[in-house]
């Protein structure tokens, strides 16, 4: 049983590794890069918000901090436009973690809806700062060193970096789920006060989870910055990013491992495809709106949970059916 599941994971990973080798059209590998960035970010977001129930609608803070750190460091350190830039990606992640500490210290004092509103408010503080400070380049944003690679192979390093971030986020998510720390996050989701009364240091646990989840999101932002070569405050500190990440996880299954991966894979690739196919940047919003109505109405716990429930119901029916047959025979 467990073995079979591992086989599926390995097959999925192999497919993801082979994709840019088989599909060389840059249009599609670009879709692959964006999809993987979102898969990594959603998984990392879910590792805190999905497990603890603290829905963070300010994850673009980490994304933007990662992107700006990348752009500013590349400039200050005079990193040339080549593979060296990639070494700065984890630094972008670390910067996002450092920023997450004070943000968490403020936002995690409140719960539920208040927490959601506070994270949105903090997000706008960051967006406005990026627009108005001079070191961030204001509305014209920042330029990154141009990488003079050939178009045919240009996307590959970015694709594999995005894949590495996603794999890292998924492994971290599994490790957390299996640790005592992850159990404490889940206990906080179900009943925070009761968890405190059983010795869980709830604030420290929440802050640690919040900070850890910022790392991969920051790396995603940093990679995005290198890939596009130019960042604007309204695109890296983007409210649509906040909402997308949360919706992808909810669509797939909040608090599950597969959910955010699947949600981001389906939604981000569809969005990119629709945008390119119909050269219409907002068509996907209509499709998504309809899709979410269906999800919320028929599978409010997300696709993954719905499917596993459906499977166990079917198995239960089969057992019941067998019993009836036995009954008739006797």
């Amino acid at each position, binding site marked *: 049983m467990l073995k079979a599941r591992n086989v599926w994971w390995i097959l999925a990973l192999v497919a993801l590794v082979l994709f840019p080798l088989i599909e060389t059209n840059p249009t599609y590998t670009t879709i692959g890069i964006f999809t993987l960035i979102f898969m990594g970010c959603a998984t990392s977001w879910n590792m805190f918000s999905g497990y603890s129930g603290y829905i963070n609608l300010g994850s673009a803070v980490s994304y933007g901090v990662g992107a700006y750190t990348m752009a500013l460091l590349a400039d200050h350190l005079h990193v040339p436009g080549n593979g060296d830039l990639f070494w700065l990606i984890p630094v972008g992640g670390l910067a996002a973690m450092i920023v997450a500490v004070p943000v968490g210290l403020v936002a995690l004092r409140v719960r539920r809806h208040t927490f959601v509103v506070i994270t949105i408010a903090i997000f706008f503080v960051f967006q406005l700062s990026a627009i108005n400070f001079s070191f961030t380049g204001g509305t014209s944003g920042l330029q990154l060193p141009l990488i003079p690679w050939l178009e045919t192979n240009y996307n590959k390093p970015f694709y594999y970096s995005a894949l590495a971030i996603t794999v890292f986020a998924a492994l971290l998510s599994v490790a957390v789920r299996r640790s005592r720390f992850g159990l404490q996050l*889940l206990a906080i989701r179900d009943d925070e006060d009761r968890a405190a009364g059983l010795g869980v240091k709830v604030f420290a646990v929440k802050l640690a989870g919040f900070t850890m989840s910022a790392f991969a999101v920051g790396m995603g932002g940093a990679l995005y910055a290198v890939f596009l070569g130019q960042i604007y405050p309204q695109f890296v500190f983007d409210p649509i990013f906040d909402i997308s990440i949360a919706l992808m996880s909810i669509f797939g299954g909040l608090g599950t491992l597969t959910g955010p991966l699947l949600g981001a894979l389906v939604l981000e690739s569809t969005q990119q495809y629709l945008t390119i196919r119909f050269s219409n940047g907002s068509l996907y919003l209509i499709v998504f709106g309809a899709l979410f109505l269906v999800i919320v109405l028929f599978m409010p716990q997300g696709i993954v949970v719905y499917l596993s429930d459906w499977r166990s119901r079917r198995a239960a029916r089969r057992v019941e059916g067998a019993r009836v047959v036995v009954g008739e025979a006797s």
Partner: protein
Amino acid sequence: MTTLLSVDRVSKAFGGLQALDECSLSVEKGSITGLIGPNGSGKTTLFNVITGYEKPDSGSVSFEGAEITRAGPSKVFALGVGRTFQITRIFARLTVLENMLVATQRDEGWLRGLTRSKSSKSELVSAMEWLDFVGIGRLASQPAGSLSFGQRKLLELAYVLVADPDVILLDEPAGGVNLTLINEIADKIQSLNKSGKSFLIVEHNMEFVMNLCDRVTVMHQGTDLVSGTPSEIRNDPLVLDAYLGGGDVYETEESS
């Protein structure tokens, strides 16, 4: 006997409502102490103050001679004061066994949780032992949300016990539970008490309290009215006046 837990002239007001008014109480080591009083007399608020969920306006709480008045819930629990809630609180989406494991790390630092697995072998063994002790071991892998009301009460008792606290505060352990289960819970409390655990029990079921407790404290309008053995309490005119509304309801029940 030495005093394990003592509450000294604690006051707590919520806006204009004086929930606790100079309330004092003590739990002797190895005793079962009952806490009774009419609805709204401040029993649950007193529990919240002792276990760190509420900070008192004045007065102090001490456990084994050390003051714990300002300590938070996780700290109080780490020191060895466990509690259950009147409205049972379990982690509905975790399994019964996972519920137990949340409590096993009583005084572990928070960073330790990052580097260790969910449970060690010895923790699993003791979690299963306590589940078997309260009689729900066979439900270990079920989601806790699927348990019945009575089973939830037992689970709550079990996961407080797994952390091995010195004193256990039970908020209405017999509330809303059928008679068989009430007797079962009383038996468990008695056998735990024999093995050295102390109890402080809030309960409305008089028979339960009077049979089980060594000492009983009666609360009225936020303060401790009188303390004594069950028979002293039973015959105290102050108690009859305040708690039972001036009648002799309990006496009649007793004689019938």
